[in-house]
């Protein structure tokens, strides 16, 4: 079993799916000879040729609009947005068409496309290269939103996304792209979209995170467990929409406490939906308010201040402890 980092896991999944199914095509800015600005499509052009690995003109709405057409004609486009900060240019096509075509045509036309995009902060990049705005897609009926957290689930979820009959927004936490390696099974595997994963079981508090925050949260969890001798249940959301609220709410019924770690700006963020689901299904079990540790509702600062904006091990720990000590 090879050890891969997350970018390599993306490439592996793309290669496997393109090999297995010739209707899979990859398109985007610089995905061809350059192999993508993060090298996620490295080597695909040589293997699959210009017809299936397509360097597009510089136009995100164009990329997604054309992908929708390709998908309706039976292809399975996997489009890359160079950074999620540019993906908003494609919202009109996603909201207006990708997410609606199945309903609009009562199943006659479907849009089995994947929109991959590196998202999130922490890589010292320019403006627009560090936001976390998964809610813009999660609030849109007809779209699924998947956010892996490590190499193995990246490969498995991307495979599932490509095989999914509907549009999937696949957000890759770029801070984790090369942060660590993980063993990835030799044979292709998939993971079910729409399921949270209980990463570690525990009894005193439920901690929920996703994307790059998983890594930081794990550190905080270890630290608190050691310092306070408590037992933490850690959940990796993996699919933002549809949200697997059952797994989270069941855990909260057991632990009675919860902290949610979110990189995105706080207000109207994913954590709010998770809290609303806990309210619906587990309110009476709550022994303390659910803690939200999140980005602030400010314009995302330039890179020299971005670490002040993103939840750190310190802030996450304090959030968890607040929920415990309440």
């Amino acid at each position: 079993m090879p050890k891969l980092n997350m970018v390599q896991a993306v490439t592996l999944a793309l290669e496997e799916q393109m090999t297995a199914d010739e209707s899979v095509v990859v398109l985007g800015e610089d995905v061809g000879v350059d192999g993508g600005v993060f090298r996620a499509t490295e080597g695909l052009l040589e293997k699959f040729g210009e017809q299936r690995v397509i360097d597009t003109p510089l136009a995100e709405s164009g990329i997604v609009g054309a992908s929708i057409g390709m998908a309706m004609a039976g292809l399975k486009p996997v489009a890359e947005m160079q950074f999620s900060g540019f993906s908003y240019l494609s919202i009109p096509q996603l909201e207006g068409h990708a997410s609606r075509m199945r309903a609009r045509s009562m199943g006659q036309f479907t849009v089995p496309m994947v929109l991959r995009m590196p998202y999130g902060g922490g890589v010292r990049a320019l403006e627009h290269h560090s936001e976390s705005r998964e809610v813009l897609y999660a609030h849109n009926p007809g779209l699924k939103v998947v956010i892996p957290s490590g190499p193995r689930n990246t490969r498995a979820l991307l495979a599932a996304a490509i095989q999914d009959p509907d549009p999937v927004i696949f957000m890759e936490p770029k801070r984790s792209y090369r942060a660590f390696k993980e063993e990835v099974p030799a044979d292709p595997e998939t993971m079910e979209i729409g399921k949270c994963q209980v990463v570690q079981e525990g009894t005193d508090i439920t901690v929920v995170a996703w994307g790059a925050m998983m890594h930081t949260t794990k550190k905080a969890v270890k630290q608190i467990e050691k310092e306070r001798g408590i037992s933490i249940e850690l959940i990796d959301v993996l699919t933002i929409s549809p949200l697997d609220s059952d797994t989270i709410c069941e855990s909260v019924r057991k632990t009675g406490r919860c902290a949610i770690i979110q990189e995105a700006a706080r207000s109207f963020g994913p954590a709010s939906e998770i809290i609303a689901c806990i309210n619906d299904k587990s309110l009476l079990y709550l022994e303390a308010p659910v803690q939200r540790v999140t980005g602030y509702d400010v314009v995302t600062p330039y890179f020299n201040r971005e670490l002040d904006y993103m939840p750190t091990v310190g802030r996450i720990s304090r959030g968890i402890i607040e929920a415990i000590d309440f």
Partner: protein
Amino acid sequence: MPKTKLCDFSISYMQVLDENGVVDTDLEPSLSKEQLVELYRHMQWGRITDERMLKLQRQGRIGTFGPSIGQEAAHCASMFCMRDDDWFVGCFREHGARLMRGESLVKQLNYFNGYTEGNIGGNPRNLPISVIVGAQSLHAVGLAYASKLKGEDSVAIVYQGDGATSQGDFHEALNFASVWNVPVIFLVQNNQWAISVPREKQTKSKSIAQKAIAYEMHGIQVDGNDPLAVYAATAEAAERARNGEGPTLIEAVTYRMMMHTTADDQYKYRTKEEEDSWKPKDPLIRFKKYMEDKGFWDNKAEEKLQAELKADCDAQVKEFESQPDFPRDVSFEHVFGTEHAVISEQKVEFDQELEEENDA
């Protein structure tokens, strides 16, 4: 070396059959009597169904819609060159073309009566009506890309108005199509208005066709009320597309004879005189005269056709109004193709609500 001419461009205009029935025989497409009659029938069917829909709307029997009256040559004659395996990507003002593609009036009435059911049936390569102005042009490019990749020789034809040419998506579509050299025909029905905005306020260019130059694409302006010119230009574009010679932009100069939609009053922003000035250019009058001159058509044939189409219209309106109620819960059926926990949960809720309502 200094200020030199870098490149020259020109845009052509084509008219085959003029307002007075004069034909340019050099350019006249060779269509058989049967074909001409068929095309004329399609155009009349578009006209008659639109007129009926206007009445139905006024009587509150369907919702808002935008009539295509006056534009039948632009969309029917262009569609007439297309094959069944070609992709039809419409917006909302090419009813005649849509009906030609195997869609029934019943279906159309269902759509304008607020039911998604109005989007299914017809040729499986017909895309549903696209309301967001300009967006569908990109879908056509993707469809055409797939044709090319699969080695099919099918073409995608996409309809849009003059207003749509202002949208970024229209520009991106033309650029992608030309860079990828895919088989698409961008047919702009330039009907002089985008709701209340006249063509001159939409773009300063002398023609829509010249916008093709920005993409080194073939572009042509045709008299959009002349079915022969529209047919000839589209046939040429389709042939080039099938031969791998890429996309074409066709501007069909026509006129929206009615209000924008039934929610609109066109006399707030334009005169009755302007409208009237277009009446002699009516594509149906002109085409009828052409067929009469050829000896293919006469008053008897006309009466027979009118009677047939009206009867069909009556029958379909009746069918439309006697359909059983559509199910209420269909909105939960086609959001996703696979089990979706949140939708399933809410479907249970929805069913309960319906029950509560019935109980109340």
